[in-house]
């Protein structure tokens, strides 16, 4: 090691100290569990532990792909996330544009602040509220239906309705929060462009299509890539959402991969199977992140952004 480098390291010695707690934490709580991935290839039992349980190669994985419940959990995961993106991706954009158009006022600030609220509330509470509001007998939704001379609907007992209810609630929960990014992008559009357009006689609609949307297109693109990249690891249809919103009657449609991992691993103590699923999940997440990253880099290269 040459002298200059050594001197620099010495100069920054306190910084390394600053980093020490974080590094220790990450090693212990993020990297160490990776060793446990061995369990995916073992017929794990608690007595033998991680290093003495019999090694079974890809048996756990083969078993998984023959498991109807596992395949169903995959279907539910893909369907829920897919529909959620299809419906919920564009809504925050539209809302942000609406909010941006508003004149600054107490009304604007208050309503905006209100829309952020559900993002900060836990799914435990939200599920409790949803069940209460959709209750077949006392729920406000059914009070309304009965007032309109319709039959009450036992919402949370209907497997066919679960996806829609969950997605609507998930959108409701996050839509306010998701406008923040787009509002930032919108505020970056130079006002002169709009002023010039107005001088040229452009209507509100034309301004929207020819100025607003093209200007925030990069942000929309990036957010889309971001959403896809985090589909597995950080989706709004999270484990917490499923765990609290599901019930035995709708399980065929509610149970996603995360939930199934929990079910097999924690409830049924099938560590090997659950770890195998976790590994698959992690791989899928990795593929998505790298793929999304690659795509965004290629897009940027072509100068579109």
């Amino acid at each position, binding site marked *: 090691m040459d002298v200059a480098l050594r001197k620099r390291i010495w100069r920054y010695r306190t910084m390394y100290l600053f980093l020490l707690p*974080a590094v220790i934490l990450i090693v212990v709580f*993020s990297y160490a569990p990776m060793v446990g991935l061995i369990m995916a290839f073992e017929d794990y039992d608690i007595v033998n532990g991680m290093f003495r349980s019999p090694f079974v190669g890809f048996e756990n994985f083969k078993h998984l792909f023959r498991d109807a419940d596992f395949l169903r959990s995959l279907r539910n995961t893909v369907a829920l996330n897919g529909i959620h993106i299809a419906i919920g991706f564009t809504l925050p954009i539209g809302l942000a544009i609406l909010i941006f*158009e508003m004149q600054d006022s107490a009304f604007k600030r208050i309503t905006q602040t209100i829309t952020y609220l559900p993002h*900060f509330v*836990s799914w*435990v509470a939200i599920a409790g509220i949803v069940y209460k509001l959709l209750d077949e007998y*006392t729920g406000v939704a059914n009070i309304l239906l009965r007032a309109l001379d319709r039959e009450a609907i036992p919402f949370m007992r209907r497997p066919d309705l679960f996806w829609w209810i969950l997605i609507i609630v998930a959108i409701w929960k996050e839509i306010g929060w998701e406008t923040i990014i787009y509002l930032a992008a919108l505020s970056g559009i130079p006002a002169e462009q709009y002023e010039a357009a107005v001088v040229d006689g452009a209507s509100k609609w034309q301004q929207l299509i020819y100025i607003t949307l093209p200007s925030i297109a990069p942000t929309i693109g990036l957010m889309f890539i971001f959403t896809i990249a985090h589909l597995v690891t950080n989706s709004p249809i999270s484990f917490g959402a499923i765990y609290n919103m599901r019930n035995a009657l709708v399980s065929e449609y509610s149970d996603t991969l995360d939930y199934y991992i929990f079910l097999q691993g924690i409830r049924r103590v099938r560590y090997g199977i659950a770890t195998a699923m976790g590994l698959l999940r992690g791989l899928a997440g990795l593929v998505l992140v790298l793929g999304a990253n690659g795509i965004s880099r290629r897009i940027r290269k072509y100068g579109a952004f």
Partner: protein
Amino acid sequence: MTTRRKRKMSTSQLITSVVMLFLAFVTIYPFWYCLIYSFSDAQLAAQTNIVFWPAGFTLQNYRSILKIGQIYSASSISVFRTVAGVVYAVMITGLASYALSQRRMPGNRALSLFLIIPMYISGGLLPTYVLMNKLRLFNNLLVYILPHGFWAFNMLIMRTYFDTIPAEMAESARMDGASDWTIFFRIIFPLAMPVIAVIAMFTGVWQWNSWFDAQLYMTKPELLPLQNVLQAFLRRNQADMVSLMQGEIRPQTVSPETIRMTILIVTVLPIMFVYPFFQKHFIRGVMIGAVKA
């Protein structure tokens, strides 16, 4: 203050106002419903339809939940993990982020990568579960705090913020003989209050809303935070609930339903009061963080 214009709202403005009003209503109403339910007399609530107003205003529900032994331990634990968790995370992430903002430090890129990669790859639920057991963190309050000192996402936000602090400030202090510790705590830290507020908020809300780790790692009910108590009450049926509530229960004014709503309000109210004040800060934090990612 903007000057008041003549009341000529264009159609688009009208539509926007209607949409926003609708959205605000749809967002607030579920919480309002729980609030009025928590102030309702249980018997009246069962007989009439509660829609906009409590049925027979009463404080009995709130008085009753104070009789649930677990409420005290759960509240203390929730407060503890929120406060301790925030202090812990701010300290560890703050120090690390500042170090990583020193771009000319040897190994900066490698260390950054090392700390960021776990955002994308992880052992998963089971390996982590096994680890916590091995670390003797089962039924241990530290399990709420220790693992959560560093989140890469928070680090990115803080580091970006530290990048905006002119290097001259640290430099001139160093020339006056100040140590790195002094520089960080006397100069950088006070300047970083906005970003610290963001991290504190994110971490605090996460800690307050956490329930899964409690479920996984705790078998003793007195170690559970408030969210889990709420969850338990939401799931249990009538007979269980009655037995859960020690002490005097007056079934006339209290029911599992009203109790559920009351506990729910207690868990949600702190958040509702806190987050509007941090609005300005976390908006900036989100913008910075997203740009980085």
